[in-house]
């Protein structure tokens, strides 16, 4: 643990140099469908993004937008009738799709770990807490002495702020916040390269949520892991992530650094998302958006957001916008912007 601390501590420095960052995980045109009686639901419709070493990428969007499906797709945990239709997932330069189940199993948890929503049902009710952490250690590292594993688990408990007395307890004896921290301890126990945190604090009370979120931040800093955080709470995202990918109806519509996205969201949907965050600082008039979404089995041609977009144009109904880097580190998929000859970004609607 201490070794990890020294070798990675520099990566979390506030101002990170974008060009130097090493890509860890590359997702390219990932497509996931769910088969239903009335046709395939397109849960993830070809998304691409890169996760860099030591960074935290937030994946946001409303329920059903495919953010969790994306995560489970990366982990190859999609359950039938869902399945990955196409795409590539590269981890440290190696394509994960097409790997045999056996080979991929070895990468699980050592390279790719998951922190699920632990307050729910993520812990096996018939196994003690320590057994559930020990079995992953033994599976990937082989048999070792009981005392050694115990010491390691107790160290993990200390890292995430859990008391040692829960070592011998069953999950039903723990509170929601404790279960969540057990899940964090489990997620980091093999020092993985990438951790995916799926709504890991959303079922908790505000104060407990803060404690758990801070634990997560602390652990990330300590280990220097790269993290994908999935969630819908924009406030929490602002606190925790370096970059944000905004998803809508199975697509990423904008990826930007957390600062740019909160200050200057470019995609109309990102704007809606930022505008609809209720503030604790000032009382402002509520901004209402219409909530009509298309049938996920049968998306309309053109832009995915056209039915709800306040700036919808003719071109949006026929041509699908592609992701373009309109500003440094800010990629947007929207027809609203044009890059002129000088390389300046113009808002089409504003100029017309």
């Amino acid at each position: 643990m201490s070794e990890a601390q020294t070798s990675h501590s520099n990566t979390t420095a506030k101002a990170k140099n974008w060009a130097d960052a090493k890509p860890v995980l590359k997702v390219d045109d990932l497509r996931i469908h769910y088969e239903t009686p009335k046709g395939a639901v397109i849960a993830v419709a070809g998304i691409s993004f890169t996760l860099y070493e030591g960074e935290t990428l937030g994946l946001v969007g409303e329920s059903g937008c495919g953010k969790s499906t994306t995560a489970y797709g990366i982990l190859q945990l999609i359950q039938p009738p869902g399945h990955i239709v196409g795409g590539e997932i590269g981890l440290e330069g190696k394509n994960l799709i097409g790997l045999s189940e056996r080979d991929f199993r070895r990468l699980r948890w050592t390279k790719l770990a998951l922190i699920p929503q632990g307050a729910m049902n993520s812990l096996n009710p018939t196994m003690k807490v320590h057994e559930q952490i020990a079995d992953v250690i033994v599976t990937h590292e082989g048999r070792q002495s009981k005392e050694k594993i115990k010491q390691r688990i107790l160290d993990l408990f200390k890292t995430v702020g859990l008391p040692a007395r829960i070592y011998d307890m069953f999950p039903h004896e723990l509170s929601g916040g404790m279960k969540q921290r057990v899940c964090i301890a489990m997620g980091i126990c093999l020092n993985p390269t990438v951790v995916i945190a799926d709504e890991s604090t959303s079922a908790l009370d505000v104060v407990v949520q803060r404690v758990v979120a801070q634990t997560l931040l602390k652990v990330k800093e300590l280990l220097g892991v790269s993290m994908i955080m999935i969630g819908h709470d924009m406030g929490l995202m602002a606190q925790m992530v370096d970059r944000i990918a905004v998803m809508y109806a199975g697509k990423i519509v904008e990826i930007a650094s957390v600062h740019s996205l909160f200050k200057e969201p470019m995609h109309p949907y990102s704007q809606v998302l930022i505008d609809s965050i209720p503030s604790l600082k000032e009382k402002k008039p509520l901004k209402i958006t219409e909530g009509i979404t298309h049938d996920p089995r049968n998306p309309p041609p053109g832009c995915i957001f056209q039915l709800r977009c306040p700036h919808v144009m003719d071109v949006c109904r026929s041509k699908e916008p592609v992701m373009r880097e309109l500003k440094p580190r800010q990629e947007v998929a929207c027809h609203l912007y044009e890059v002129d000859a000088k390389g300046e970004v113009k808002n089409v609607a504003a100029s017309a």
Partner: protein
Amino acid sequence: MSQPLLDIRNATKVYQVGGGIGSKKKEVVALQNFNLTIADKPATITTIAGESGSGKTTLANLVLGFTHLSSGNIVFQGKDISDMTHSEILDYRQNVQAVFQDPFGVYNPFYRVEHVFDLVIKNFKLHKNDSEARDRIEAGLNAVGLRGEDILRKYPHQLSGGQRQRIMMARAYLIKPKLIVADEPVSMVDASLRAAILDVMLKLRDEENISFLYITHDLSTAYQVGDQIYILYQGSIAERGPTTSVIDKPHHPYVQLLVDSVPQPDPDDKWETDIELPDEEVMRAADAKGCRFYPRCPNRWDHCLTAAPPLFEVAENKHEASCYLYEPKVAVKR
């Protein structure tokens, strides 16, 4: 002074947990000596906020008559709801309506959406004839931005969460109650659609003179729409007052922690301090006599264990906090 719309006096609710043959019952105090008044006019939105287990849902169930008080009174327009006759209860139901958290579960999956309207029209005898009933439904739906032909003949699973919750608002509007208990109405609705529902609340308050008891764990929506706020901690009021006053300047140590823990949607405004939580057991085993926040309180002293702190005024606009820090005498002594 006119009669208040709703007056809750010294309400205490104790649940018996466990029991049955051979095992002892345990008592859990869900609400303790709770007082709340909602004025008849003008209509207001009163927020009840707190974490899970704070007693806020118990309060909603009590006001809606799903459970009964262990002691104390809930008085609606001068009439104690536990002394009501059958017809008075029906009348009360018509005057006190609700919107619940889960916008899916409130629809019986067996029926079409129109069933929720048919129920109230039939039971409250709101119509003279069918066409009048239809007009009223349409008017209610229009008020929340929906059209009858789009939704009434559909099954609930064919609608979006936001639509379903707005229909619930339309239903409440149709009955034209005096008070709506809104139990976490937006917590299961997507962020971008919350505003539409909160806006209906504001509209009903201002145009139809309907008061709200807005129950939530989310301080920021409360801040946007609420007039008065009551923040509960383990069944007791920690702090109450005008929403802006309480959230801008929280006095009770718990409320300060709570407000501080809400993640700010601003990457430049990050949490500064680390906080620690004591063990669950310690938190729950709070001495029944003293302040319930004692085990977690950074400002505690022995005095807090003598008795539960009453509400002390901390600002002139009826902003009160239940903490000995603000006890006039003691404050001087310190």
